[in-house]
């Protein structure tokens, strides 16, 4: 049985021949498309390492069957920066040391981008709550919270400027 799906990943259309309906969106991104920035920490929705944006919303891509997202618009960590210019959340993570080993980081950053878009990053307590689906075993949480807060402020200021 060969199925085929098409995804728009980071603005680029991808037709993915799937020989197997069991493949998750995470494994399709990593093993078939070759976008390995998105990480697998648990494969069962418990850690957030695999967080990507699907149609603008953050999801655990390990819990998503690829076939059920045919036609979706997916943003991964590889799609955030504009050329050499980091997304404000990425820049803030570097500046605030919001990571150590970096393994949870793509998921943290995608989750933060999603959280800011949800309007849930307005104060540190909301950030901590809203980021608690993303485990960091290195426990870079103080840096993560600071980074999200910092990025949210920068992005809000940018928005005001352009409005």
């Amino acid at each position, binding site marked *: 049985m060969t199925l085929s799906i098409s995804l728009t990943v980071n603005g680029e259309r991808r037709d993915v021949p799937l020989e197997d309906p069991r493949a998750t969106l995470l494994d399709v991104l990593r093993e078939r498309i070759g976008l*390995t*920035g998105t990480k697998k920490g648990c494969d*069962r929705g*418990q850690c957030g390492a695999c967080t990507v944006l699907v149609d603008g919303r953050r999801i655990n891509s390990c819990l998503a069957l690829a076939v059920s997202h045919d036609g979706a618009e997916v943003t991964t960590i590889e799609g955030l920066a504009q050329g050499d210019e*980091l997304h404000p959340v990425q820049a803030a993570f570097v500046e605030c040391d919001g990571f150590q080993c970096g393994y949870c980081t793509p998921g943290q950053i995608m989750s933060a981008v999603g959280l800011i878009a949800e309007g849930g990053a307005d104060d540190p307590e909301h950030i901590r709550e809203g980021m608690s689906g993303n485990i960091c075993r290195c426990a*870079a949480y*103080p840096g993560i919270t600071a980074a999200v807060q910092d990025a949210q402020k920068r992005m809000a200021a940018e928005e005001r400027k352009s409005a």
Partner: protein
Amino acid sequence: MPDTLNPTAGHVKLGSNSGQPMSRRDGIAKVTGAATYAADNRPDGLLYAVYAGAGIARGRVTSLNVGAAKAHPGVVEVMTPENRPPLALDPDEKHHFFAWRIEALQNDTVRYAGQPIAVVIAETLEAATEGARLLAPTYDEEPARIGFDGGEAYDPPTVGIGGNPTFEKGDAEAAEARSAKVVETKIATPMQYHNAMEPHAIVAQWDGDKLTIDTPNQAIVMARGGFAAYFGIPPENVTLRSPFLGGGFGSKAILVGPQLLCILAAKLTGRPVKLTLRRDQMYGPVQHRGATRQTVTLGTDGDNRLTMIKHHSVATTSSFDEFIEGAANASQNTYATPVLKSSHGAVRQDTGTPGPMRAPGEATGSAALEVAMDRMAEKAGMDPLEFRLLNYAETDPASGKEYSSKNLRECYAEGAKRFGWAGRPLAPGMMKDEHGRLKGWGMGTAMFPAPMFQAQARAVLKADGTAVLETAGADMGQGAWTALAQIAADGVGLPADKVEFLSGTSDQPDGGVAGGSGHTATAGSALFAAGSDAVAKLAEIAMKDPDSPVFGADNAGVEAREGRLVRLDDESRSDSYADILARAGLSEIEGNGTGARNPADAEARAMFSHGAVFAEVLIDPDLYQIRVSRLVGAFAAGRIINPKLAASQLNGGMIWGVGFALHEEGIHDPRTGRPVNGDLAGYHVPVNADVPCVETLLIDEEDHFVNALGVKGVGEMGISGTVGAIANAVWHATGKRVTSFPIHISALL
């Protein structure tokens, strides 16, 4: 080649890089997804391996439905003890002090739940996963022996890595009898699992008798030799690449069975193979922290000075190998006492073998010691901090040696000030927050040895005024890519952006082990020495060259600064590296260096990092839910190479302390031996909302003995004072003394 720098020459002034809070040099790669971890490698023709884990904890595998697995579309091969290619070493033997006995399908015996019993290799991960399920093993099962009561007790010959299981200074029994006050404290700690966010992973490819492996590893060159030995090939035939580890915490330092299985699978199929552990497979073959049951007995005299510390710990290990959490040894070096006794027992159970997990021994042992100290302070009617200051160790209690440096007093003072410790009521149950929650303040002393191991490094100064420095170091998040590069740049006297730092693969000089909180000190010393060696060679050329502005300056007369050699007697006269090389007609110049401790200093001094941790907890008066609302840690660890990264390490360590105190607990079903909570939903680690306020203060400390750089280490210390501080804060809020970790709500009711 200079050995390590001459430490008696006094404190070496490093250049412009060390001490700067530089952002991580690997930061952009990590925030853009470009950093490649082992499982991100996808060589052409890649196959996926999934192993089936034993569903029993003890017995034999009697059948596997290999046919069903092989018949599944996409499955290429099934590897069992029947067809597993040979190994050159017996995996049931211990080949050196840093090698564990491992499971590599040597036979049908099952020694713990989750042990690999067969490997399915397929064209896709999905097919391999399904194939492994189809194996449907049957067993001849024997009853599992789990826990202190179910296992077999014995006296361990060593604790930790080759440590002494007993230590005695003075007569503990006599001291106890003479003491004015005696307090005995019993503490139990559970099995804990490292749970690095990156599950153990490996991609293996053979090319004839050459092997290339991508796998996260904390001791790259040593591991290369280990893998080579198992396959009977020379170490040079193995290339091990480990540029980034997604966390290690001790679990990626020692070779584990699944790594060998992947390499064997690649051999069997003749194709590259990737094997990544599922999260539930992280609760078996890749080590854990053994459970402990500890008793700490403290005695004091009429002035509340310690007369004795007696610490006994029993720890769990596996039925077939040994790693004993050296918890009782953690009492040997913290508080002044004339009499000391530490001893260990062990219990064999049907689990995987434990291993070093962040602060092995210190984390568990200091948790018990700090609770014991708090109870003694209570009995003395003293403030816990005052009691600790009264029993401050001016020399190392175990050896009687002077410390190489110890700025703990300052840590206590600065930490207490920042936390606002003054005015803390002595009695428990006196404080509430504005929501009526019970509030408590506790503290603990953090302490960790400052070891050095062995490392080598190479430095190459180039004609264009840049340099390349390399060592096979390991960055598991502690920041080696950055901190080692800073030291390397200072070694060659260049700004960090003029230095290319190479690390993380086995063809580089041996960077030693990233463990024991000694990597920066060891690999850093090697890099600094290599840089100095290259600069010294350059200086020799320049000073003999009549065309050089530094001609005639003697050896001590020039200093390397920002890519130039500057005459110290006349700073207006200097020569650039590029010019020196150009005049000499050289395209580059190489230096080599070693990092290791000066044996005379090691013999003469006790070397430790220290800190003080202060914790506030808030406890719901009805539900007894515990929140750690504030943590302040003040730490002195010699020269801090990068304060930004060091603070992250120490914050992370303290948050591990939160996990230890409140969350982490590996539970095995006593009937089946299987992990009950073997995933991240069941095995809790702190999440962001668990740690609202964590703060590290770095206290200045100069150390002239640990190494010429004055560097100790910060990787593990943060956990050591924190667990006790939280437990003591819980007592201060509720009046209930903690007897086991994690602290369950039920213990407070």
